[in-house]
């Protein structure tokens, strides 16, 4: 039964979830948990919060399953929910006037354990981790909209039209956001060359 459902589209799995099919919901979650988690993580830069918000995203998916309209792609729909949660989280964090970046012990240690490559020397691994941290900082320095557009394009490979639907703006606005985001990143990441 599980194997049969695994070949079903996300849109159809949502329809089954609306009918109360928990197995369909589980497959849906497992299919999209990584992308949702990492969209949030790259956007807010906090691993623990990213996991909480990813859970919250799927809670909302479950609750809203019977209102889901299959004319929209499922990924566009779930990314809209995710983007809204991220924005709300940032608003709350700015309200507290303290936005913590991950500390060295917490972030780098986990990523090196997860992504260690036997062919890479320890120096290469350290360098890759350092660059990852610099990229993360550079992304966090971008304005919210630019950051979201860039993450959706670079890491989720959404089209401009899809990003526009997620962010509820025009395609030309998405293009403009990406031009500015890339320019800002170029200025921040120029240190890689030094």
């Amino acid at each position, binding site marked *: 039964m599980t194997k049969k459902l695994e070949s079903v589209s996300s849109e159809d799995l949502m329809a089954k979830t*609306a009918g109360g099919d928990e197995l369909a919901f589980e497959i849906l979650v497992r299919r999209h948990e990584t992308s949702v988690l990492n969209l949030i993580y790259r956007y807010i830069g906090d691993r623990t919060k990213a996991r909480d918000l990813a859970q919250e995203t799927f809670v909302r998916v479950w609750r809203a399953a*019977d209102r889901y*309209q299959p004319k929209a792609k499922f990924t566009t729909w779930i990314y809209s929910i995710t983007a809204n949660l991220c924005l709300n989280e940032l608003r709350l964090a700015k309200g507290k006037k303290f936005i913590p970046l991950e500390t060295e012990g917490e972030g780098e240690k986990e990523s090196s354990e*997860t992504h260690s490559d036997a062919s890479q020397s320890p120096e290469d691994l350290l360098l890759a981790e350092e660059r990852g941290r610099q990229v993360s900082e550079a992304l966090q320095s971008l304005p919210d909209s630019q950051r979201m557009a860039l993450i959706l394009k670079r890491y989720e490979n959404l089209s401009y039209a899809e990003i526009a639907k997620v962010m509820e703006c025009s395609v030309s606005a998405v*293009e403009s956001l990406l031009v500015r985001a890339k320019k800002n990143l*170029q200025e921040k990441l120029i240190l890689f060359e030094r």
Partner: protein
Amino acid sequence: MKCRQVQNKLSAFQDGELRPEEHEKVSKHLKSCMACRERYAEMEKVWQALGYFKEIPPEPEFYGQLVKKINESPEPRSPAGFQWVFQFFSAPWVTSSLLIAGILMGTFFGNMLVKSDLISFQQNQAAHSQAAVEVFSLKAFDPIPPGTLGDRYMRMASSGEEGRR
């Protein structure tokens, strides 16, 4: 294509969002223009560097924790039986029809109420003073009925004018 035009399109070119003919023109320009090619190479370097930000895996117990969260959550799902209501009213033709029906019904009932007010007013005319009846019954461009308040006023006004002459 000129360099400035190409540079304005480099981001969309990189993202694969140009129309085929535009993509072809930019591609052709990049082959022949070193300045634009270098600029594009810088953009590609940044794009590749973003790959250093590795993704994190979800925890193995992610789904289990999610189920627990859903079960603990006090907010129930909306009953499946009401889904058809949302779907029905979300259709554009339904919304337009309801709007038009509302306007027509409002006009109909409004006319009925206005007519009923006139009739009741006319029936109550006898209860109003003669002067009030004259004023309300007066139509603007009809000749002023002789012997009425309006007629006396007009006579006074015209005699006043004659005096001034």
